[in-house]
């Protein structure tokens, strides 16, 4: 049985798809058979981040509506053979997804894979609720700003009430906090919430801290998940996150301002520290 992990946030633009792509890739690189599903029907992005947009033939909606088989719709990642991508439809709307359809897809995938990563759309409507409904674990992506924290809080409420585990009175979804776009300099200046404030309000376990990094934008535009960039701070932080998701105890990095050497300061250095 696969472990189903939803990557969600409530608020848009906080790094859900980047994180889903990085986590799925990281899990696959460690030998886990992993599939990452884009639930953002109508605003398909995951295929771009994963660099497979030119190979999309069928999508999740086709599978749910019986127009294509799972095997036809899944795209094998170019860099890791353990990783598959199930893209969303760009032309349909979110109502094309049904609870029964999603359940069937997840059950079928469950037999073959170790991890199923669900990349949730923003918001708290149907698409987001379907993405989280069957989850065993949730990665709640949060930026160090008050609106993001409040939306994450809202999503945590849904995770504990609107999921299958909650409705069947089973063990609750295991919730993990992933703080992204963290900039220690701006935290020190008081522009951003600090990590302790976020943790105090959301009151769930921290699974990772991703520093704000130029590497993320570069990776996203190149269609290579940032975790492949193992020299970058963000890539390393995602690798740590994957380790923690797999149950390893890894110390937290990138929380305080990194001291940069004289040479790095003189020549700039583009986020690769």
């Amino acid at each position, binding site marked *: 049985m696969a472990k189903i992990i939803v990557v969600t946030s409530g608020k848009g633009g906080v790094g859900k798809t980047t994180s889903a792509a990085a986590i799925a890739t990281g899990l696959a690189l460690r030998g886990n058979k992993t599939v990452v599903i884009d639930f953002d029907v109508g605003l398909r992005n995951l295929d771009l981040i994963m660099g497979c947009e030119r190979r999309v033939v069928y999508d999740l909606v086709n599978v749910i509506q019986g127009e294509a088989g799972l095997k036809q719709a899944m795209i094998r990642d170019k860099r890791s053979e353990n990783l598959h991508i199930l893209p969303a439809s760009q032309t349909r709307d979110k109502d094309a997804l049904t609870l029964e359809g999603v359940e069937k897809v997840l059950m079928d995938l469950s037999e073959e894979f170790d991890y199923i990563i669900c990349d949730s759309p923003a918001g708290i409507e149907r698409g987001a609720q379907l993405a989280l409904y069957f989850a065993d674990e949730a990665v709640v992506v949060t930026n160090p700003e008050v609106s993001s924290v*409040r939306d994450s809080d809202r999503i945590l409420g849904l995770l504990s009430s609107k999921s299958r585990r909650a409705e069947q009175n089973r063990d609750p979804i295991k919730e993990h906090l992933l703080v992204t776009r963290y900039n220690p300099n701006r935290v020190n200046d008081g522009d951003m919430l600090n990590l302790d404030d976020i943790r105090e309000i959301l009151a769930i376990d921290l699974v990772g801290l991703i520093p704000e990094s130029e590497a993320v934008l570069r990776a996203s535009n190149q269609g290579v998940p940032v975790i492949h960039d193992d020299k970058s701070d963000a890539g390393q932080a995602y690798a740590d996150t994957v380790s923690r998701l797999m149950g390893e105890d890894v110390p937290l990095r990138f929380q305080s301002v990194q001291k940069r050497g004289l040479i790095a300061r003189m020549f700039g250095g583009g986020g690769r520290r």
Partner: protein
Amino acid sequence: MSLNRDRADTAFTFKGGMLPMTVMELASADPERIRAQLAGKVSQAPAFFQHTPVVLSVEQIDEPHLALERICAVCRAHKLLPVAVRGGSDPVKQSAWALGLGWFPPQESRPRAVETRPVESGLVEASIEADLPVPPTEVAVQAGGRIHRGTVRSGQQISASEGDLVVIGAVNPGAEVLAAGSVHVYGPLRGRALAGIHGDREAGIFCHDLNAELLSVAGTYKRLEDIDPKMLGCSVQVGLKEDQLRISALT
């Protein structure tokens, strides 16, 4: 009728009240079985059987007709005073009234009863200690109230339509906690808290770490802006005094 009518004129006033009542939950309608079990109980806890008023609950019994008169006689013989019947069919209700007893509709949910009811015995085992003069009682009219454990998150609303609400955890921004009675928050209060929602002016709000978006008692409210900044982050009690919301530190 004049509003200013002299109080001395009235022979009585009606008042709502909630009294603790012992409910005798019958699993069998056989008066002889009840008699046998009662006899045993009397020897265990004689102090309990002092004309104690009881409500006979017949919800578990699925028979249209009961020997209600004989059951009452057995009870009275053991110094229990049946005052009312709860549940049962229409004929049961009619015969209760004929016997001068009150009738209550069946209780909708009784999560607690499951734990205290031994399956095999004929009567509910009110675990009476021989040296305990006060019998354990079930409140016949539920006082309401609610305890919520865990964080109340943005968008969630927790309410107690009767009685007090106790939250053991934080109330986050964007969350709302309401109670007909008082609101107690054992954690930071960062959301909205409304006490006395049906107009109870005696209700209050009690919390650690006040950072509430809104505080309201019986409709009188204060927004976060209106709260004295000195009180923020403190453990406080909030109540109505002369139509004003008064926030004072809990010491």
